[in-house]
């Protein structure tokens, strides 16, 4: 089985690809972010392509380990086809700006820049051109994927990589994918109109089943129907027989020089898969921990900052376990973390030096997320300083006296009873006690009782 993809994502720029219109097309009324250029008015001429869009596409291509096409004119082609959302009757699409990449074992054939068409509502027969001219990056893979499951994994990895660059639009579901699939002995079938990772998976699953049951698989283009999770043949009218590509006579070709590429390379973020590899080697941390750390750019940034002053192995696990848990609970993305790196570093040092317990550390962290401050001050504010031993002993004794049944269970060999008793002590001390100390004391006192 061979599966390949053509993926389109909107790039995040202030203005459109060939005009100055803003790109926040979802936030405004239909047909308000428009001008003669992006509506294809007679006589309108495109501006030279948006530099930011070109740079973003280069950065994305570099993330995908591609070779950038330099010192060679990259023509912007007109791809002609007839559809209501296409104001000029052609879409502008660049020749490859990069080639020969790789991500997650899948070879990337080419990366292009394109303009998005408008949005056509066939029910109402209306077109909204707010989207027309938004820059797209098109990524074409080689057919290296072997199963729908692999395809799903690849797309997830690709999306994570694209999100990592911060160069694609942050709104959900801007992904558009076409996929092609061929089974042993069969012809290649293209599937269009896929809008999500799940959609791609379902479409491929269906297609594998269909092709296995079909005696002779013809070469054809099919459309994915999301509502029914099936693919159907596209009407020949919907497929252009020939796009009649010509270089757009109104635009000079894009020319990328090596210097520009080096500059972008030096200033860009590392791709997640490369970064994972590097931090494992550089900090000697565990792979599964590194995997969680690189899942979001700001999260792993944070790790590398604190690792400058705190034992990386300790810090990585603490971030993965405690910080991740607190953030998940608050549904807070790492980029919104309000406390400073210094505050976090100090907190980690306090825990590492056993100045405070990990549990207290977590309590302080929770407070730090809400009201960022120096962790020592928070410690004081929350009254979490170490309890006097005598006071703790008193609480433990009280719990033992108040829970005869559990004490009895423990003496009869039920170890869980100890956990229960420890929880009661923690409750009594309002979480201020060190659980390890509590356990120790409980065991000691119970053993003394038994004697």
């Amino acid at each position, binding site marked *: 089985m061979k599966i390949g993809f053509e993926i389109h994502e909107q790039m995040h720029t202030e203005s459109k690809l060939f*005009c*100055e219109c803003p790109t926040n097309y979802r936030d405004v009324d239909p047909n308000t972010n428009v001008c*003669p250029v992006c509506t*294809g*008015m*007679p*006589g*309108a*001429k*495109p*501006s*030279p392509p948006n530099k930011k869009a070109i740079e973003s596409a280069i950065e994305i291509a570099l993330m995908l380990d591609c070779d950038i096409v330099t010192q060679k004119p990259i023509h912007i082609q*007109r791809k*002609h086809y*007839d559809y*209501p959302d296409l*104001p*000029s*009757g*052609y879409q502008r699409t660049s020749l490859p700006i990069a080639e020969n990449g790789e991500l997650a074992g899948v070879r990337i054939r080419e990366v292009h820049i394109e303009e998005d068409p408008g949005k056509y509502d066939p029910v109402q027969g209306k077109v909204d051109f707010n989207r027309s001219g938004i820059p797209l990056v098109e990524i074409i893979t080689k057919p290296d994927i072997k199963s729908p499951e692999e395809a799903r994994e690849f797309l997830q990895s690709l999306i994570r990589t694209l999100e990592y660059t911060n160069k694609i639009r942050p709104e959900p579901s801007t992904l558009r994918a076409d996929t092609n699939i061929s089974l042993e002995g069969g012809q290649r079938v293209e599937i269009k109109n896929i809008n999500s990772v799940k959609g791609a998976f379902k479409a491929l699953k269906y297609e594998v089943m269909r092709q296995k049951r079909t005696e002779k698989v013809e070469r054809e283009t099919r459309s994915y129907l999301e509502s029914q999770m099936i693919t159907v043949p596209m009407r020949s009218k919907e497929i252009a027989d*020939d796009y*009649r590509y*010509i270089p757009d*006579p*109104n*635009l*000079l070709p894009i020319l990328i020089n090596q210097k520009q590429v080096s500059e972008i390379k030096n200033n860009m973020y590392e791709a997640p898969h490369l970064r994972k590899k590097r931090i494992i080697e550089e900090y000697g941390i565990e792979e599964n921990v590194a995997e969680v750390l690189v899942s979001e750019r700001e999260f792993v940034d944070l790790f590398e900052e604190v690792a400058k002053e705190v034992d990386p192995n300790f810090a990585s696990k603490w971030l993965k376990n405690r910080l991740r848990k607190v953030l998940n609970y608050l549904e807070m993305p790492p980029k919104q973390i309000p406390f400073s790196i210094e505050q976090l570093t100090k907190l980690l040092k306090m825990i590492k030096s056993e100045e405070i317990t990990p549990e207290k550390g977590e309590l302080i962290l929770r407070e730090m997320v809400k009201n960022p401050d120096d962790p020592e001050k928070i410690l004081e504010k929350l009254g979490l300083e170490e309890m006097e031993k005598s006071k703790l002993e008193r609480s433990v004794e009280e719990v033992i006296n108040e829970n005869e049944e559990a004490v009895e269970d423990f003496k009869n060999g039920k170890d869980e009873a100890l956990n229960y008793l420890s929880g009661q002590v923690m409750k009594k001390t309002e979480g201020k006690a060190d659980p390890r100390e509590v356990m120790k004391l409980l065991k000691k006192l119970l053993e003394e009782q038994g004697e």
Partner: protein
Amino acid sequence: MVGISTLEKLKSIRRGDLTAVDHIEEKIDEIKDRDEGINSFLEINQDSIEKAKEIDRKIEKGDEVGKLAGLGIGIKSNINVKGLKATCASKTLENYTSTYNAVVIERIKQEDGIILGMNNMDEFACGASGETSYFGPTKNPAAAGKIPGGSSSGPAAAVASGLCDLALGSDTGGSIRNPASHCGIVGLKPTYGLVPREGLIDLSMSFDQIGPLSPDVEGAALLTEVIAGKNNTEGIMHDVKSVEYMDKINPDLEEMKIGISPKFRELTDSKIMEVIDDSIDFLEGEGAEIVNVDLPNLEKAMPTYYTILSVEFFSATRKFDGRKYGHKIEDVCGDEVLRRIVRGKHISQKEFKNQYYQRALQVRTLIKKELEKALNETDVLVGPTVPKLPHDIGEDITPSDMYAYDYLTTPANLGGLCGGVVPAGEKNGIPIGLQIQGSTLDEASVLRVMKKMEEKE
């Protein structure tokens, strides 16, 4: 017919001898009176008198006024003027009212030029006779019964008949120079990429160029100064902020080297060559050095031009799909427009790509180099504009005879060079224009020779 010069007109408006309002009212009255027989205007700008009043008020107050203050300017119907119809003289766009001004229109308004209205033309600028307009053919005011030439038929006829002071046309393969020659006026196709095309409806994007039609050389120079210069939101333009010609067009031909080619004579009617030879003798007599240049592939320009044009025109007209402007172009256009679309659609097919379009692009480069070489050895190339005398309006001629009118004007478009036309004389009462082609951005040399020609009897 032409009366006082453009500069004299400007002076008398500026001095207050002639108010802009009186001047514009007179033009509009004349259009109403006389244009029925010429058919050079498709629409009159109802705001023109208001604009004239504004200019008069400025002059009265002693305020500074622009370079074109008070002149009435006709605009070819393929250039967008906000609120007026840019129909391209086609049924396809009969209901299209411009929603924005072309950059050249903004610049004319900035200099206090007054847009008189929209001129007739060959449909979508496809034609060299002025006969393919959906709104009927334009007549030649200078040669009764003859075609005015095209495709800027309306602007040329309007200037030639004095219905407007100046006009804007467009030149893709000779569409300014051809009607200027037939109507006995001055026309200039500026260097490709000197004048912004934003707002000019596409015929063939890599050739199209807006330029002036004028009764005299100074008028053409002045209007070019106003419209030329880089527009930063356009993809393909020369990096020239502005141009100045008025102080450079002193008609002194000493040390000027003028190139002529035997190819011009080979392709041209001998009756026309008599007038052209006479002009060359005149220029030589005025001190220019005449040298022969080699243009071995000149006759390949026309077929090369039509190949590239057809592909670009096919692409440009895809937006007229019937959804936004009411009619699908193929359903309502005339024969010549349809012929070019169908040809373009055919030769842009994947399987023919290397055979026609790519090959044409190669020949284009060849001809461009040839012209550049010839212009390296000389200052300008001088010769005929149209190889044949214009036919009678309505006369049935074949498409290939029509295309043959373009043999001598298409090379400048292939090369992206500048070219001007100035009256050289008459044959059988039909005006004949001399074409002067210059290097990229060397409009000044072209205008100098044109200015000298105005001294010729």
